[in-house]
């Protein structure tokens, strides 16, 4: 069993009057993939947005309870959010490369975080990140072309390279394959398998099959509550909770 990287205790999130998460207690293990599943609006994205304090940008959002990374409270007002986001990268549903070159997309993060002072160092970071994102071979001769000129799947891998470039510890993925075709999806899944050796990964997905394929642990959310969490194999073969079973078998009414 790997160490716990992130631990939430009685985590509650409110968007104004509306409560989006109710007392979520969830441990995410280091160098493991945790999949979060559940119907739309169940709180899974809200949960991962707590990990890198993305909810801060929403004025009416209030977070109570605890969420710790390596024992340090993420929700602490005095925490340096910029350095938190250096440690916790994020990849979104739709690939969103900056309107810049492939090279600049990857080097942007290290530059603003003060990494890679010389051109050589930056070159190295870009090459390393693109290689880790399994994109290097496809783009090494066209690094100056705009990131947006790549195919959807390549753009998503570029976004993963961008996330990796600042050497994070955790990568959050919010439905990273929902806009991709099966081949591009397979490449991202293969990549996730590789990345979990280095990073702690949390993936939100609507595809049960994807959750089974990529994750070691799965959490099922419903109406803001974490209904069941356990080993992925157990959740999909023989879940304890009837609601989990109804959801994964397509019986949700």
């Amino acid at each position, binding site marked *: 069993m790997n160490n716990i990287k992130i631990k939430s205790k009685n985590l509650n999130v409110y968007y104004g009057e509306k409560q989006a998460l109710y007392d979520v207690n969830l441990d995410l293990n280091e160098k493991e993939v945790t999949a979060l599943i559940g119907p739309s609006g169940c709180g899974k994205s809200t949960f991962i947005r707590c990990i890198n304090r993305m909810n801060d940008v929403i004025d009416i959002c209030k977070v109570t309870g605890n969420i710790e990374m390596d024992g340090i409270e993420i929700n602490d007002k005095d925490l340096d959010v910029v350095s938190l986001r250096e440690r916790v990268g994020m990849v979104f549903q739709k690939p969103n490369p900056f309107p810049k070159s492939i090279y600049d997309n990857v080097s942007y993060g290290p530059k603003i975080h003060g990494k890679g002072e010389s051109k050589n160092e930056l070159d190295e970071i870009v090459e390393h990140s693109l290689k880790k994102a399994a994109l290097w071979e496809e783009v090494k001769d066209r690094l100056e072309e705009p990131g947006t000129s790549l195919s959807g799947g390549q753009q998503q891998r570029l976004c993963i390279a961008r996330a990796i470039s600042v050497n994070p510890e955790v990568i959050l993925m919010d439905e990273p394959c929902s806009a991709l075709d099966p081949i591009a999806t397979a490449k991202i899944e293969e990549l996730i398998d590789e990345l979990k050796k280095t990073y702690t990964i949390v993936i939100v997905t609507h595809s049960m099959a994807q959750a089974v394929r990529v994750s070691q642990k799965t959490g099922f959310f419903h109406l803001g509550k974490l209904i069941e969490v356990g080993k992925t194999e157990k959740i999909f073969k*023989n879940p304890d909770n009837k609601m989990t*079973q*109804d959801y994964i*078998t397509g*019986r949700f009414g």
Partner: protein
Amino acid sequence: MSNEHTVKSYEEELQFLKDSLINMGSLTESQLTDSMDAIIKVDKDSIDKIIKSDEKINKFRSKIDSQIMNLLVKRAPMAIDLRETISSLKISQDLERIGDLSKSNAKKVKPLPLDLPDELLGNLKRLGELVIKQLNDVLDSYVNKNYNKAKDVWEKDEQVDDLTYIAMESVIDFLSKDKKNLDFSTHLIFATKNLERAGDHVTNIAETVCYLIKGEYLKGSRPKGKVVQDN
């Protein structure tokens, strides 16, 4: 029981699969009963009918196979649905084997003399009745998703083994009295062994039903009777 699937045709496909398996089960049970009757009554006229019914059982097996392939491809079943689908595959294989063994036993009726003594067939008859009861019970446990009933069947395989041993002894005893009995006694020994094997397939089904219901395998090794321990 769970709610119905949002996709109605998925619900129907799973129900068709269960129905096919139940029909295959009841056909297998009748065939086993018929083959047992044929031996006890040395009824040579029923042999062809039993052989024909085995073809029907085999057809059910192919039909169930293709239903399962379709479900796996179309629905990628999960949790209870996955267990239901995979269990159907395993149970249909065991039923088909029981069908084969019944057919094999029916064929053994041909060389039997019409005047077999009662004391020779009594133990074989008891064994046959027990295996038929076991099959009936395990199918019942499948239909009603009754875990305890399936587990009872699993535990009772020990009795099947013990009765097999006793039935074998009586055939061997009969054989040792007069070597002229050698030819048909050999057939009866094989028929006895076939019944014991059919009992093993029933036990397999019981294990599958337990897994289907609880999602975990029965712990510990199977209860073993005398015939198995001696082997």
